[in-house]
């Protein structure tokens, strides 16, 4: 033990292991969402509550379809990364691993479902 340097003992044992990358990925997706959200709210907000034919017509247009697909993709990825932050804070061991996997399964499951629906409408 006494032959190990402080540096050697510290490497790979940071609080988050891959925390820097995780933080950067959250930052990039956050900026992406900051650009997308105003258009997304406008499109979804003005279409919610309308008859089905109008909903179909809206999301068959390129701009609403692309903005909604992008917001779902970037948003659910951002959610996966964000959920991992509190899971890392509050859970340990196997419970933490299971929760991290569940967050990934849920996020990408919801994302795929949304994209499938959009594809059915737009194509």
């Amino acid at each position, binding site marked *: *033990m*006494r*032959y*190990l*340097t*402080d540096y050697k*003992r510290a490497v790979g044992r940071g609080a988050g292991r891959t925390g820097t990358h995780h933080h950067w990925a959250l*930052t990039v997706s*956050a*900026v992406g*969402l*900051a650009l997308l*959200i105003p258009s997304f*709210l*406008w499109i*979804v*907000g*003005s279409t*919610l*509550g309308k008859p*089905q034919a109008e*909903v*179909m017509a809206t*999301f068959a247009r390129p701009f609403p379809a692309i903005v*909604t697909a992008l917001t*779902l993709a970037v*948003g*659910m990825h951002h*959610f996966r990364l*964000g*959920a991992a*932050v*509190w899971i890392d804070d509050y859970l340990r061991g196997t419970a933490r691993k299971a929760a991290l996997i569940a967050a990934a399964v849920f996020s990408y499951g*919801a994302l795929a*479902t*949304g994209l*499938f*629906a*959009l594809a*059915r*409408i737009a194509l």
Partner: protein
Amino acid sequence: MADAKRGVVRPLSPHLQIYRWHIPMLTSILTRITGNGLVAGALLVIAWLLAAAAGPETFAAVDGFVRSWFGILVLVGSLWAVWYHYLAGLRHLYYDAGKGLDLPTAERLGIACLVGSVVLTVLTLLII
């Protein structure tokens, strides 16, 4: 020298329940709650899109929920959560640049997030 000192008694941070509530603490906790809570709004929008793609009967069921008081509560709540998380996220980017970290500025930014999110929610509801 290289051995870490073990058994050193370090000062412990006071427990959450002992802390006096203050703006940076409240806004930080709200950021996490809104971020995770937005799952409800996201799932509702995805269900609504899927129902529109599926057919008239499914759409009628989901659309009925969207128009119900509970559906509207979830959607308006999500709208506020989006705007709150949006402003808090921008504040986070500003903090990441190493700015606004002194207490008076942090408190002012926190109040701006709280007030701004309500203003943006009302504005959005008026516009759409």
